């Protein structure tokens, strides 16, 4: 198993897509910085209270931690799932496309171990992506925007019901928690993409199918027509990761949704193993 993991890790580190994902995240942070900077300047400038007399948007509100939180929440929904899908979707289908899957399966290793090692490497990729992204945001926030407390208001980002605040050091800790909760949530996508990777022989097809399923559920879940279906979508359960940014973390709800996501992940992985063990590999 250890040798398998080492081999899979080497493959991951040699893949161009691995580095591309980090480059795109850097580009996204740059874009966010520009948007945040101009927005903050507009909202705290002289004409900010022309139309309305009162606002909570001040120089104190716009700080590096707020920037990091906005950047993370905006990217988590659409950007990170794409990279995780790409990484997991190419695991088995990529081997099939390259013609190496049959050779790998002739080695004295169980197919289940192969799936597990590929999943663990994908999980590592997801964790690295999130750690890198959060670290970069905090660094950029510190250098270009400056630090302060994390002020939260109801409405934007939908985190709180009433105004709240997390002091700086505690907020930094919460970003650390977000690496764990965010990675755990992304594992559902990784497991789904791995299943698609076993079903389809093309990595592109596996990735596209995963993203299509994710986006469909995500969008349908946001349409009021289907609000009664919303609790049954994994995309709804995945949202639990953001709870670590609430002033009082709702631990019971967080553990509930973490377990639901865990059930999706392990259920999908189990299915993947069963399907892969029965698969006739002809490539």
């Amino acid at each position, binding site marked *: 198993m250890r040798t398998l993991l080492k081999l899979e890790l080497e493959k991951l580190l040699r893949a161009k897509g691995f580095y591309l994902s980090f480059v795109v995240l850097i580009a996204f942070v740059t874009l966010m910085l520009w948007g945040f900077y101009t927005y903050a300047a507009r909202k705290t400038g002289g004409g900010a209270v022309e*139309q*309305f*007399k*009162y*606002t*909570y948007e001040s120089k104190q509100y716009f700080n590096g931690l707020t920037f990091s939180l*906005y950047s993370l929440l*905006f990217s988590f*929904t659409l950007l990170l799932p794409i990279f995780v899908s790409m990484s997991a979707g190419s695991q088995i289908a990529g081997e099939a496309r390259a013609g190496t899957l049959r050779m790998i399966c002739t080695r004295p290793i*169980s197919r*289940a*171990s192969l*799936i*597990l090692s590929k999943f663990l490497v994908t999980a590592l990729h997801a964790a690295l992506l999130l750690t890198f992204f959060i670290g970069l945001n905090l660094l950029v926030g510190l250098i270009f925007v400056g630090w302060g407390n994390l002020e939260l*208001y*109801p*409405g*934007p*980002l*939908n*985190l*709180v*019901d*009433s*105004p709240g605040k997390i002091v700086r050091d505690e907020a930094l800790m919460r970003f650390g928690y977000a690496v764990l909760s965010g990675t755990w949530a992304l594992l559902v996508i990784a497991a789904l993409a791995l299943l698609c990777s076993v079903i389809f022989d093309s990595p592109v097809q596996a990735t596209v199918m995963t993203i299509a399923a994710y986006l469909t559920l995500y969008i349908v879940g*946001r349409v*009021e027509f289907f*609000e009664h279906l*919303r609790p049954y979508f994994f995309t*709804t359960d995945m*949202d639990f990761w953001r709870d670590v940014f609430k002033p009082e973390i709702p631990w*019971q*709800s967080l*553990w*509930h*949704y*973490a*377990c*639901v996501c*865990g*059930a999706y992940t*392990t*259920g999908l*992985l*189990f299915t993947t*193993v*069963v399907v892969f063990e029965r698969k006739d590999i002809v490539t």
Partner: protein
Amino acid sequence: MWVKLVLLLLFCLMILGAVHFAQPRESDKPSSSAKVVHPLRLLTWNIGYAELEDDTRAHDKDLPAVAEVILREDPDAVALQEVTGNAQLNILLGFLHGKYRGAVAQQGKGDRFEAVLVKDAGTKFIPVAVGARYALGASFRPREDTQEVLLLSAHADAFNAARRRTYTEALIDWAQARAQSSEVFIAGDFNFELKADNETNFYTDNLKHDSESYSHILRHFRDLGRAAGNTAINDRRIDYIFGPPTLEQIGRVKVLRDAAVGRMDHWPLLVEVGL
């Protein structure tokens, strides 16, 4: 084989964990009901209809049911929204058997009015100009030994968050100026779309305006009905009763979800506080 067994075991553990940590649904949660000595009981209710109807204002045929709820819950004062005018208010007061006095706000640009009903015979009704709209205040003493209470019945724009923000700012300025001499309560339909549960809306101007409006109110007032949950269909909490931040005793806080009749899309919110 062991991989499959481990996965299956983990799957079962996760299911058990999910069941163990599951929380009761909002509708299963008990409403707040602490006992308050000498309570002031306030009720707010938008008695208009949902958007699908031809006339979305309150309907005369529903007034007996509205009166029945008021008589049953026995509030000291009631803030109503979407009343069609004085004539309709008089019909409602008739159903209340002279137990309440009432008034409607001045007519603004719209075709519907806010109204206030109060038990106290010495109540003074005060028109409140809030931009192009009007709210209505009622100043009264629930008991001889209490400070004067000022209840405002308000209704913010349903379709435009920027207008809601302007309205809220003006209303709070007006209320703040009177907070020294009276215990000020603001009740009504503010139409804020701020539900935080499991939503992932991207940052929008509308959301920002509602956020600014609500946060501005909370700088000076306390949201007394928060614990009671949704007040309108489609899981919306858009009706509020705000009170002084220094209030120490809050008693029963309840949304009367069985009270709506006809095609009403709001439920009354009842709040009991100790003065």
